Structure formats: C-alpha cells, structure tokens
C-alpha cells in the first residue's frame, strides 16, 4: 500500500472517490447506451412515418397527374429541410432526386434504416397501379439532431462524473476526519503521559468500541511498564542506600580521625575499620555485577554433569560449623544428575543454607531436597518458621535487597542479595526459582534442567 498517502482520512477519501468514479462511470455509460437506443428508435419512427405518408399518396392516388402531385408533395415536405425524398422508376417521369437509382438499390429489402452521410434512409418498392408504373420510394431524415443530442450527453458525462467523484472525496475526507476524532483525543491524552505523570491512563469512557480495545491494551502495557519502572526506581534507591551507609561511615570515620593528631595504633584501627567497610562495598559491587551479568543473559559456561546430592553434601559440609553453632541438623533427600557449574551451584546452595540457618529455630532440622520433576531437578532447602510468610512476601523473596524481616536489615552478611543470587544462578542454568510456605515450614529453592537418562 505504498502508493497510498500516509493518512487514514486521505486514504479513505481517495478510496471513496475511486469507488464513486467507477460507479458514476458505469451509470453514465449505461445511460448513454439507453439514450443511444432510444434515439435510434425515434429515428426509425420518423423515417417510417414519412415513408408511410408518401406511400399512401403513391398507392392510393388515382388521378392521372399523380406524378406531378407526388412531385409537388415532395417539394412541400422537403421544404422544412429535415427530410429528403427520392423516386426511381423505369419511366423517367417517375424519377426524383439525384442518385435515386443507387439509393433505391441500397435500401432495397431493408427493414431498418440505413445510415448514410448523416441521413437515415428507408426505401420501399411499390408495384405498378393503374395510373403509374412500379416505383422505388426512398425517404431520408437527417440524423444531425440525434447525434448532437448524444454528443452533448457525452460532453457532459465526463465532467459530471469527475465533479461527483471529487465531491465524494471531499465528503469522504470530512466523514473520515469526523470518525477519527476519537483517535486525536486519544493521542492528546497519550501525550500527557510521562515519567512525571506515570499514573495517568487513557480514559476509555467516550471511545467507540474499536478504540476502547486499543485504549485498554495501551493502558495494560503502561501498567506493565510502570511495574518495571517502579522496580528499577526502588532498585536504584536500594543500591544507593546500600552503598550510602558504608560510604558515610568511611568519610565520617576518616574525617574524625584526621581532626587531630593520632597515634599509630589509633590510625591502624581506623584503617582496619575502613577496610571492613570497603570490603562490604566491594562485595556489594561484585554481587551486583554478578546479577547484572546473569540478567544480561550470561550462561553457566563451565558446566559439567554432576550428582546434585553430592554437591549439596559438599556445601553442607562447608556449613558444618555454622550449623553446629546454631544447633541445627540437615537431612539430605533425593538425587538427580544435572549439568551444572559447580562453583555457581555451591554458591546458590550456600545462600539457601545461609538463609535457613538465619531463620530456623534453634534445635530444628533443615531439609535439603532434590526432586526430579518433568526434566528439571528441584533443589530446595526447607526449615521451620515461627510464623508463615504472607504470599506477597513469598513472591518478593528473590528480589534484590528484599528482606522479609525488615528489622534484621543491615545485620546480615549477605546484604539482601542472597536469594537474588540464587535466582541468577538458576537463570544461568536455564532454570527457575520457587518458594512455598505452609504450616510453619518454608521451602525455598531453584530448579535446574536434568540430564535425560
């Protein structure tokens, strides 16, 4: 549709006028055909009437000077100018008009008029009567008026059709504009939406059904974008917040230390404290980069086939001292073979265990489980909880910097990125994460694709 103008109104107007042009032309041509036929009929009738008139005289005339009377009548009739008459006979007294012999033979035996040199001719052969020999009578009527009528019609037809089509185009354009007015309204509304007016939506109240659909889809798209926008916004705020605390500590401590002379031990103490804060910053930055890479689609590159239970056992072994300190035991259940990058798997597993160790009541038992399910191995850690997490918290567990227990904020070593990293690791293996909570048991885990046996 490249040849069409890039405007719905113009397109509609153009298409309307094309359709109108075709319609008008069709009607015009049909009318012309009807007119043509009608004119021909009239022509025939006129010629026939004149022929009858003359024939009557020739057939019924009984006077001896019939030839003269016929001649007189012809003169009278011809004087009006439209009709002409010819007579042809073996007898030279019964001849009238130039070229009468040829015309008589041309029209001989024809029932319809013969068009010849802008005349319509009709002839008849009359047998001899008592007062005259056999004659051929030919009558001609000028067709000029008929063809003029037709030509006049044709001259008018084209301009009328064109003007009509143009009129339809103009009307069509106006109607299209009228019909598209809600679109202009919609666009004006959309222009008002931006970062400063994020909550604003298109109102589908006065919209026609076709556009209301579009309006609703557009609003739904805006809602989805808004959610992502809010996430990004709060994420930026979170990052800034997480980095702000250690930075503030670093600046403050250093400034305080420099306000007066300090001995070497004091300065060393300061440097140690600074180093701890810097370590914290480094860990946050490293984790953020890790998450960013996973989100940009990085995949586990050095994955090898492994028994998941064996890798879980190794991670649990790593956690042994922490578990003992917290008075916890771990039961490992199930196994599956999967292609994993072991260091990433250990990292995810370690974060799950860390999470469980932090929240499980003293003396309870953790359950580390591997369950094969439809081509995936679901790896999870379950622990008891004092009270169930509400579902809305459960879905946010894997968000960056999200802490279900707000009062613990900042006290943990893993600065609220632990489960986000689990999710990233799952993503890097083409897997997913899940969390369930019921009857005082919470299960958090991730799934990785298994090796087909």
């Amino acid at each position: 549709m490249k040849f069409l103008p890039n405007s719905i109104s113009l397109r509609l107007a153009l298409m309307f006028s094309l359709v109108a042009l075709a319609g008008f032309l069709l009607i015009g041509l049909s009318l012309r055909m009807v007119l043509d036929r009608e004119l021909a009929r009239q022509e025939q009738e006129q010629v026939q009437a004149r022929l009858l008139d003359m024939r009557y005289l020739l057939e019924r005339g009984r006077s001896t000077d019939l030839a003269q009377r016929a001649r007189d009548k012809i003169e009278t009739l011809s004087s009006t100018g439209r009709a002409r008459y010819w007579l042809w006979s073996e007898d030279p007294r019964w001849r009238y008009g130039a070229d009468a012999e040829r015309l008589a033979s041309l029209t001989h035996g024809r029932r319809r008029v013969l068009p010849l040199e802008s005349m319509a001719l009709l002839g008849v052969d009359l047998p001899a009567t008592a007062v005259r020999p056999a004659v051929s009578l030919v009558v001609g009527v000028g067709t000029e008026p008929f063809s003029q009528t037709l030509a006049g019609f044709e001259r008018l037809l084209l301009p009328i059709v064109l003007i009509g089509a143009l009129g339809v185009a103009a009307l069509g354009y106006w109607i299209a504009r009228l019909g598209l007015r809600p679109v202009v309204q919609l666009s004006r509304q959309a222009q008002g939406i931006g970062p400063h007016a994020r909550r604003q939506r298109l109102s589908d109240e006065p919209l026609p059904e076709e556009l209301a659909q579009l309006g609703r889809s557009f609003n739904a798209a805006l809602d989805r974008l808004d959610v992502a926008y809010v996430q990004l916004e709060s994420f930026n705020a979170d990052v800034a917040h997480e980095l702000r605390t250690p930075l503030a500590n670093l600046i403050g401590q250093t400034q305080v230390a420099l306000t007066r002379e300090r001995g070497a031990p004091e300065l060393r103490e300061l440097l140690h404290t600074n180093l701890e804060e810097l370590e914290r910053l480094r860990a946050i930055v490293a984790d953020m980069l890790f998450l960013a890479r996973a989100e940009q689609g990085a995949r586990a590159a050095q994955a090898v086939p492994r028994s998941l239970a064996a890798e879980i056992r190794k991670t649990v072994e790593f956690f042994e001292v922490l578990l003992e300190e917290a008075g916890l035991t771990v039961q490992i259940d199930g196994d599956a073979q999967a292609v994993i990058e072991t260091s990433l798997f250990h990292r995810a597993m370690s974060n799950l265990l860390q999470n469980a160790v932090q929240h499980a009541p003293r003396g309870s038992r953790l359950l580390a489980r591997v369950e094969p399910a439809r081509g995936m191995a679901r790896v999870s850690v379950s622990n008891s909880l004092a009270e169930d997490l509400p579902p809305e918290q459960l879905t946010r567990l894997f968000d960056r910097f999200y802490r279900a227990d707000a009062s613990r904020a900042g006290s943990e070593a893993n600065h609220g990125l632990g489960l986000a990293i689990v999710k990233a690791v799952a993503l890097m293996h083409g897997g997913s994460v899940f969390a369930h909570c019921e009857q005082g048991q919470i299960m958090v885990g991730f799934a990785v694709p298994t090796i087909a046996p």
Partner: protein
Amino acid sequence: MKVLIVEDERKTADYLRQGLTEQGCTVDLAFDGIDGQHLAVHHDYDVIVLDGMLPGLDGFELLRSLRAVKNTPVIMVTARDGVEDRVRGLREGADDYLVKPFSFVELYARLQALNRRGRSQEPTLLRVGGLHIDLIARRALREGQRLDLTAKEFALLALLARRQGEILSKTTIAELVWDMHFDSNTNVVEVAIKRLRAKIDAPFASPLLHTIRGMGYVLEVREVL
C-alpha cells in the same frame, strides 16, 4: 620473588609496587602494553601481573606474544569479568585470573601460589613456635600436648601452617579447605577459625593464630610487646 606489573592505572600500579616491595619482592612497572611486552620478553620474572586492557598493546595480545617465547607465570587482572574474558585469558595461557576490585591479600596469595608451583616437595613436618604439625600422621601438638582436631580443623591448621606468616583471605581459605570456589558472604570461615583458635591458642600463653581485620588470618609467632 621478582615481579613485573603491567598496569596503566597509576594508582593501582603504585600501591601494588609498594605492597609487593614491602613483602620482599623486587618489582618492575610498565604502564603500557609495549613497555610491558619488552620487559616481559627480555627479562626473567618469577611472576607477571598483567592488566587486561592496556594502551598500546592489549593484555591478551601481550600474553600471546609472551607465550610464544617463554612460560613465565602470568596472573591477569581485569575490570572485565565476563565469563568469556576469563575463559579467553586462561586459554591464551594466563595461569590465574583476578577481577577488579580484588583484594591485595588475595593477589599476593595467588602470586605466591604461582611462584611456589613446580618447587620441590614441601616438608611433611611443620613447626610454628611451640606448634608441631605432622601432615602424614595427621597429628598436631602444642607444647607437647596433643590437639584434638576434626578433619576440617586439621586441614585448616595445615593450610595456615604451610603458609605461615602469610595472610590468607577468607575466600582463599574456603577454596583450599572446603573446595568452595565462590566469593562467600557467609561467616563459616570466621566461625571455623574461632573454633580452631579455642583449641590451639586458648589453653596457651601466646596466641599464634591472628586475625587481620578486613584481610584475613595469619599463623605466626609474634613478639609479645
């Protein structure tokens, strides 16, 4: 240990030189790939610290041209930590790979590990002050007293003793004792050290296992002030 540092970031290069010099290393600096290549090819170093992105000649290019002539151990240091970069560095012949920001302790530990590689067999009997460790019998004694250690505690002590006087970061310890190759945010190592300390130091007068805050742990005899 003779070390070449090829690094275009002056501040980084300077603190690395100071740190390594103070640890007793001889350090040469190159601020771009061309100088670095010249030094690396025409001198013999024990280890080369090589930045990935360099003016003049890319770190990876330098590594390739160096590997064509000699096998000096190289540790790549780079701000890019994409897996492909890591794989590429190691494929081009780097012996180790560190991502910025890295800790100095970590770097030094890895330099020493590279330097130690291929050396003669390590002793099986280690001694730190009054502490004796028999790696074969898997036994540890302090002032003649048998220490009751778990397998992991023994492995941890053995590591610290083998690297006595050297600061070991938590990451290095987690890697070498538990085979956990990731930047752990847990306090497993802290707790393990605390427990080990309770067994090897608490009953005795002078502590051997020291915490260097923000860096790691070191096993050594320190003069009592």
